[in-house]
């Protein structure tokens, strides 16, 4: 039987996102230049939540988009074709500070693909990375700017992020294979 260890409760997740929102606000004084882009799928609801929190801090709405990286992955010929989700970026990213948002940072390959995909939409002034969980095991020189929680993991473990938007209560758990 696989073993489940809680990493973040709903309350802890909310506190982590609130802290990340404040850190984004602290790092980026020019609020009008910041846009949020969630990486499909887990990053998209998180980007929306961060957008709401940042909107409360700044008193103005923060443009939020979603990005699917399937077409830019580096393992397309080694796996079944991924389910492609919609990419919706209803603003120009050129000259903006784009905060990429994802649920779990692992090998870093998704983030590389995301930066590649984002380039097709314009030339951001800078790209920052916010993740709910950093579980280590990077395969590329990529580091998050904003982290909800660092979790040391073994390679064969998996991190499950459950979000209310996807139909299950907010929670992050570590799954250890039996």
């Amino acid at each position, binding site marked *: 039987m696989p073993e489940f260890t809680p990493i973040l409760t709903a309350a802890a997740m909310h506190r982590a996102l609130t802290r990340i929102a404040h850190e984004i606000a602290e790092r980026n004084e020019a609020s009008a230049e910041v846009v949020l882009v969630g990486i499909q799928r887990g990053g998209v609801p998180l980007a929306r939540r961060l957008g709401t929190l940042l909107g409360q801090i700044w008193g103005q709405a923060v443009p939020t988009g979603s990005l699917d990286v399937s*077409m830019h992955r580096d393992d*397309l*010929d*080694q796996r079944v074709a991924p389910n*492609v989700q*919609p990419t919706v970026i209803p603003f120009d990213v050129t000259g903006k500070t784009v905060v990429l948002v994802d649920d779990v940072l692992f090998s870093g390959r998704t983030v590389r693909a995301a930066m590649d*995909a984002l380039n*097709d939409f314009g030339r951001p002034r800078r790209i920052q990375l916010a993740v709910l969980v950093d579980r280590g095991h990077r395969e590329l020189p990529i580091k998050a700017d904003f982290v909800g929680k660092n979790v040391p993991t073994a390679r064969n473990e998996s991190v499950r992020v459950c979000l209310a938007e996807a139909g299950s209560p907010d929670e992050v758990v570590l799954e250890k294979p039996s």
Partner: protein
Amino acid sequence: MSWNRKHLLDIESLTVEEILTVLDTARAFKAVSERAIKKVPALRGKTVVNLFVEPSTRTRTSFELSEQRLSADIINFTAEASSLKKGETLKDTARNLEALNVDFIVIRHSASGAPHFLSRVLHASVINAGDGAHEHPTQALLDAFTIREKKGRIEGLNVTILGDILYSRVARSDIWALTRLGAKVTLCGPSTLVPRVFEQMGCRVTYNVEEAIRDADIINLLRIQHERQRKTMFPSLNEYTSLFGLNKARLALTKPDALIMHPGPINRGVEIDSDIADSGRSVILEQVTNGLAVRMAVLFLVNGGKGPQEVAP
């Protein structure tokens, strides 16, 4: 959603889920074509051969552009300028191409089953771009995509396919796809070109054009395939036009929101009045746009069908 196939040979063998996977994936690729940068690196480093042994402009250019937009390298091969003219067999031509380490072969051939044959003798992925009067799977997928995009659904819709059914691979693929997705398909045309045997595919057959179009949500017009007919199947094109051509009087009988489709090339004044082809009821040019997205989706999915069958995290 799942796709585990290395080839796209026909619609007949696809499940509903597989057809819907193509349509859903195509939606994302349609968005790519609407961006400033219309290219993604999904097939970077892959080589595609477009082996068009039978003439084609529309399908070939659509495949070529979709391959380019996926960043694949392309070799174009047409019957007129090839060693097939010098007596080489299809198998030898294909094996020579494969010796160049190509990854995909998109084939159009006048012989039904040619893509299936190639898929058995080659390691590359084979995509059927039309084989004889058998199937034209990407056309059916783009037709289904267009109908779903315009009407929001396919299930329960009345689709009438009007024209040369007997010699049409588009009709066969459309019938497989649309009946499988729950549409009610009616076939109409001269009795010589619409044999009753098609009722076995789950269609209604009628020779009365007014009856065929009256309740239709979609009217899909097919061209008379002069080149595939070995003998004259009806007295004259003029008679065909007067009996079955879509003109203003007939259009007035249809539902006000019935859409007109045509796989092209259209013969203005034969199966369709020029004004109707250019009217707001016609989605003929949107079919062309959607063809690109569907072909990108098919290449993308088939590429994944070659990998180990596991889903990466």
